[in-house]
């Protein structure tokens, strides 16, 4: 059975329009029987077959935005953690899965992924912060080397590029890091476990790699 409702959560974060358009494009190009819906309704999220939590902004402000939507955190807990529906976080949407965010002030995250969101610290002082631009993706460990979300996407130093624009990342446990990117040492690019995945980069802004990744998520059956 194909998933037919994918909800993109609207909680006042900036990049909704771009995310929605990229998902709609992926559905069209791959001819999928999927409805993409941008919603701030916890009920719709509770009914969704897949859920996307985008995010642009400061951690504390995004957390406040999410909490301000009536019943949304509960709907997420129920549908993603208890029912195991596939979930994709993007950028700050990914960071919100961590235990705490340390950007500007300390804020609790959803606690789905162990670790805090901390400032990236490239070992080369000449490297700039934020990391802004295109970087390659390294899948971590044997279990991730054929990860279904990278089906058809070339990874490694000679692989395809994803667009990053961030000063912070999740310092996650190794077993929940799916991919890193090299920026003066490994920086968390993707975290996840079971039905949960989150990217630090912006698939909706990563041209070919991004659309391929989104298509893979839409087809994903964890």
């Amino acid at each position, binding site marked *: 059975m194909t998933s037919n409702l994918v909800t993109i959560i609207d909680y006042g974060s*900036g*990049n*909704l*329009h*771009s995310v929605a*358009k*990229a998902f709609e*494009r992926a559905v069209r190009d791959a001819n999928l029987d999927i409805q993409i819906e941008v919603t701030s309704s916890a009920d719709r999220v509770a009914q969704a077959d897949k859920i996307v939590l985008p995010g*642009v*902004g*400061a951690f504390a*402000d995004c957390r406040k935005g999410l909490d301000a939507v009536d019943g949304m955190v509960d709907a997420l807990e129920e549908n993603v953690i208890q029912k195991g529906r596939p979930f994709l976080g993007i950028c*700050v949407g990914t960071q919100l899965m961590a235990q705490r965010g340390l*950007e*500007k002030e300390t804020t609790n995250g959803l606690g789905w992924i162990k670790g805090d969101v901390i400032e990236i610290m490239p070992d080369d002082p000449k*490297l*700039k*912060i*934020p*990391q*802004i*631009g*295109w*970087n*390659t993706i390294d899948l971590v460990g044997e279990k991730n080397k054929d990860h279904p979300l990278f089906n058809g996407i*070339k990874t490694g*130093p000679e*692989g*395809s*590029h994803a*667009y*990053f*624009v*961030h*000063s912070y990342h999740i310092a996650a446990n190794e077993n929940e890091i799916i991919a890193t990117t*090299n*920026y003066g040492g490994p920086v968390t690019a993707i975290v996840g476990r079971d039905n949960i995945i989150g990217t630090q980069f*912006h698939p*909706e*802004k*990563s*041209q*070919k*790699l*991004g*659309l391929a990744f989104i298509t893979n998520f839409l087809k994903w059956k964890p």
Partner: protein
Amino acid sequence: MLKSRIIPCLDVKDGRVVKGVSFVDLIDAGDPVQAAKAYDAAGADELTFLDITASSDNRSIIFDVIKETAEHCFMPVTVGGGVREVADVRKLLNSGADKVAMNTAAINRPELVKEAADKFGNQCIVVAMDAKKVSADNEPDRWELFTHGGREKTGIEVGEFARKVTALGAGEILLTSMDQDGQKNGYDLALTRYVADSVRVPVIASGGVGNLDHLVDGIKLGGAGAVLAASIFHFGTFTIGEAKQHMHDAGIAVRLD
């Protein structure tokens, strides 16, 4: 590793590209969305729109331009021009911009940088600085900020201002040399290097590109993380692909996929 970026810049006035874009057979050379699509297809790493609309009646057209661009182009877009308050930043981000550049407003009221960065994160706040050299030949270099297209002097020293706005939360500096802009003699490399060395955030070099070596110099000698150019791309003097190949051949890591 992170790649150096090439950023074509489109000046938009009343919803139209100023001077037009002629490097591909566009049906409408003045349509910013068509130009954006062409640059997306050509492999540009980002796109910058500078809205130079003067009339307040037409101020809102840029939001539609950004929205429509985001429907077709899945690439990063920076928008600047006319940003005066946090609400302007929100509207641009909601329309599909990834980064918002502020210029005069950051000079007049630097706290705006902090307000916007606290709300949206440092990574999406760009401060655009228009600089001119004010020192004489026999004096140590000194550059100051100018506004109103280089006509109005502010007396503010560029390095000091760059440090100030990054401390407030700017995540990137778009640095244009008003001396070099339009001259096709290359970036002001001493200026670029000076600002790049003054701050931890990436600097985008702008103003003066006439050939592909200038792009290489902006990265290698200027220390920029990204190079911005307009006319050499718009008028088809060089393609994005040629520019990337040239930078790659010069030993600069660029995205070729």
